[in-house]
């Protein structure tokens, strides 16, 4: 590391000598003990939204229901993210272990991995792992069984309630909330749905202890995180880093020396321009991310970048709610019209207002998050939008 402000961590991928060591030790502890450990650690969901994991598990544990469900959300679809694939490939047992611990705490007997359709090639490998794992659960007397459900490729199905619909054989459309998944998720059963990475951290916190985890990161963003780094960088790839670094430090390490902007959190995240690198923190107090870090250098047209995102969302919106379905079409048509001189520059203001409406009124995160990338790109690269 050139800069000591940036710390590489090795929790997720660190290999374990004994196969199910961590899991076995963990399930021997009491539910209260484990839950306290996870709540104390301050672990927040690693999918991007950052809901406190311990609380989620606690809510589900408190539900009185005969059947509960644990789902591992492996529908990794955010542009620029590819870390869950790596985790599932390198340390699948840790993912399964995290699910089992969650199942023990909330009292679930069934678990599913919702695997992104494009990761179908992982199926034989994962099924093999799963067979062994399910056998092991029987041996240790934990009444829990995991299956894999293969998605069909829609981005929106990564949204938890759309994911449930997809699993139920329905159209992958987000549901109205409330009820929340911990009350009524898959088939209306209380469901904990966590990102792949979150489940691994949950398990590992049980191993290393909340203290060690908490020692990393900041008060809002405890611990470390796996980043998928791509774009104009000489060293693209997957890195586990301590949370709370500044974009400046990040770019110093990963940039190619000519970094113009960093898109944090994928197409639905924020674009940070060079002038704001120093003041911007990567983490929940600054800009949270599910792991996607796209680096752009000065050869890139930010108009093209934005246009690409809008293209993506226009396709990947489920289409059910008005602001998201039509909003994206208007934004795309709008920036094109401004770029081609059919609308004057002021029209960008109208489009900004539209993103505000989309943020306030869309049914799910897909429509709500457009304001992030749109306004951060348009505000910071206005000339590129017009000329």
């Amino acid at each position: 590391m050139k800069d000591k402000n940036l710390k590489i961590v090795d929790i997720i991928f660190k290999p374990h000598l004994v196969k199910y060591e961590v899991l076995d030790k963990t399930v021997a502890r009491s539910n209260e003990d484990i839950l306290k450990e996870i709540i104390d650690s301050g672990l927040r969901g690693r999918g991007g939204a950052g809901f406190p994991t311990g609380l989620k598990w606690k809510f589900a544990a408190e539900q009185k229901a005969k059947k509960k469900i644990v789902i591992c959300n492996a529908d990794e679809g955010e542009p620029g993210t590819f870390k869950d694939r790596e985790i599932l490939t390198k340390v699948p047992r840790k993912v399964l272990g995290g699910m089992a611990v969650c199942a023990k705490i909330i009292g679930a007997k069934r678990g599913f991995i919702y695997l992104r359709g494009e990761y179908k090639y992982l199926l034989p490998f994962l099924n093999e792992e799963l067979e062994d794992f399910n056998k092991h659960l029987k041996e240790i007397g934990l009444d829990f069984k995991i299956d894999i459900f293969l998605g069909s490729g829609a981005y929106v199905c990564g949204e938890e309630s759309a994911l449930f619909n997809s699993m139920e054989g329905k159209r992958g459309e987000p549901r109205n909330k409330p009820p929340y998944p911990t009350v009524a998720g898959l088939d209306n059963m209380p469901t904990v749905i966590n990102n792949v990475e979150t489940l691994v951290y949950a398990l590992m916190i049980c191993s290393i202890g909340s203290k060690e985890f908490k020692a990393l990161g900041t008060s809002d963003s405890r611990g470390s995180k796996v980043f998928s780094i791509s774009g104009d960088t000489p060293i693209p790839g997957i890195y586990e880093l301590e949370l709370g670094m500044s974009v400046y430090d990040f770019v110093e390490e990963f940039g190619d020396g000519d970094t113009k902007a960093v898109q944090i959190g994928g197409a639905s995240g924020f674009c940070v321009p060079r002038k704001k690198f120093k003041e911007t923190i990567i983490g929940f107090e600054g800009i949270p991310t599910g792991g996607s870090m796209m680096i752009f250098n000065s050869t890139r047209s930010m108009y093209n970048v934005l246009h690409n995102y809008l293209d993506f969302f226009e396709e990947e919106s489920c289409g059910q709610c008005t602001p998201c379905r039509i909003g994206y079409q208007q934004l795309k048509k709008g920036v094109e019209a401004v770029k081609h001189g059919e609308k004057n520059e002021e029209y960008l203001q109208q489009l900004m207002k539209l993103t505000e409406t989309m943020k306030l009124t869309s049914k799910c995160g897909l429509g709500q998050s457009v304001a992030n990338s749109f306004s951060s790109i348009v505000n910071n690269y206005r000339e590129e939008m017009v000329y």
Partner: protein
Amino acid sequence: MANINLIIDDFKVTVEEGTSILQAAEKVNVKIPTLCYHEDLCVAGNCRVCVVEVEGMRTLPASCAIPAEEGMVVKTNTPKVRRARKDIVSLLVSEHNTQCTTCYRSTNCELQNLSAEYNIDNETYMSVLKPDIVIDRSSWAIEKDDSKCIRCQRCVRTCAELQHVNAIDVVHKGKDMIISTFVDAPMNDVVCVNCGQCINHCPTGALTERRYFDDVWDAIGDDEKHVIINTAPSVRVGLGEMLGFPVGTRVTGKMVTALRKIGFDSVLDTDFTADLTIIEEGTELLTRLKKALVDKKKVALPMMTSCSPGWVKFIEHMYPDHLDHLSTCKSPQQMFGSLAKTYYAEKKGIDPKNIVCVAGMPCAAKKYEANRPEMRDSGFQDIDAGLTTREIGHMIKQAGINFLDLEESDFDSLMGESTGAGVIFGATGGVMEAALRTAYEIVTGREVPFENLRIMPVRGDEGIKEATIKIEGCLPEWSFLEGVELKVAVAHGLINARTIMDQVVKGESPYHFIEIMACPGGCIGGGGQPIPTNAEIRKKRTEAIYAEDEGKVLRKSHENPEIKQIYKEFLKEPLGHKSHELLHTKYRKRFRY
């Protein structure tokens, strides 16, 4: 249920747990605009027009989809809310075919109303209407114009929840998301039963009935043609809504005058053939019972009514192996058509090829029924055109008739006489009630044992109703029915028909006779009735139907003098040779897609 206290626009409201903010707001007289919401259907929460501000919430939630919670503070009309709503309506307009001047639903369109209320302009957003949309006019009954669709999915929910047909569903995603059929097949090629409930639940002009009034005008203008119309019972209790009368007003006399002014040569009553249906279908039921009880023959029981063409197509698609349960009787409309071009023509001395027989119906499926190849027993197409209540309303407006002040008059004669039994065909349970009034009396010689002929167990809006009537004191020729407990059931809305049929399929149906109507509420809630139609409106129309019944001197089908006359002069006897030829039909097995 616990009570919830909340504040909406500074008003304190107490509601039951589970009440949505939208419903709670209604209680304090705050009307929140909606588009995808319909009280007949489950909540979708997808148009987002009904958003409100809730203290402590980051976003503006859809009030239809958010349950009221204790201590909630809701604001429905802040600048933030108004801006968002206006933006959402603007977006919908930008995706919409805004040629309102040429839209059948103009002035009765929920999007148009909101657009006017919020003073939407066409400049804020550029049009993103798909350029190459072709209107699907393949169906005899339903026109589908995607350029006017706002993707609220009310039709989809109607087709699934009320009717369990699932002919239309959401396909594709994002900007390409649209309501379509299985493999995008044309509407006449799919499982659609033409009930038209999707039309009645559509907020815009995306789904409409296929209009035939221009053909009818042409026929009226043709001196060679003798144009007659028969109007179904539900038309007279619905039509007023289109022409300035309050919901539930009976406008029978005015309707007859108006149709005469329009130029129909003869204005007749479908209730006449409803009465005839009772005689034929009642006899068919008694014959089946005799075969089962006396001859111990295998015969399809329960027998089921066949007046509702939506229901008939439903069973043809969904239960093709159980068509023998259907009564072979044609619907009153089709009986009317085949008699108009035989009996009526003969009596009036008119060449049947010059008779144009029009049906005024509360129904979309009747248009399709008129075009079924089976329906040509008179040697011609029995019914030339089926009009909805809405189309008749349009024709009256086109003719410049001041309906409000119109004098009343009676139906013309020959096939214009009817009884209260024929009238109640319009409400769910009506066919059953009419059949029981007649059958019981034929068998026992006495009136049905219900006060003032009101057979209450088969009335009302419950989805499935049942009744048991013990037959005692039979006349000698019906002694085989002595002591039999006649079990009957009534279902309306095809989701309920499915429940009934699943029993039949399993061989567990305890009934002898079942009435099924495709539409919720029966014909008064039909797919051709004025829009809007909802539970309250259905209730008022139903009340009007029963009031019409009680206003009649004759209330039993077999007492209709014209019915007696037609059997004496033409048909000879129920289920006789002529009846078989003209009044009964066959059904066909259809695929289930």
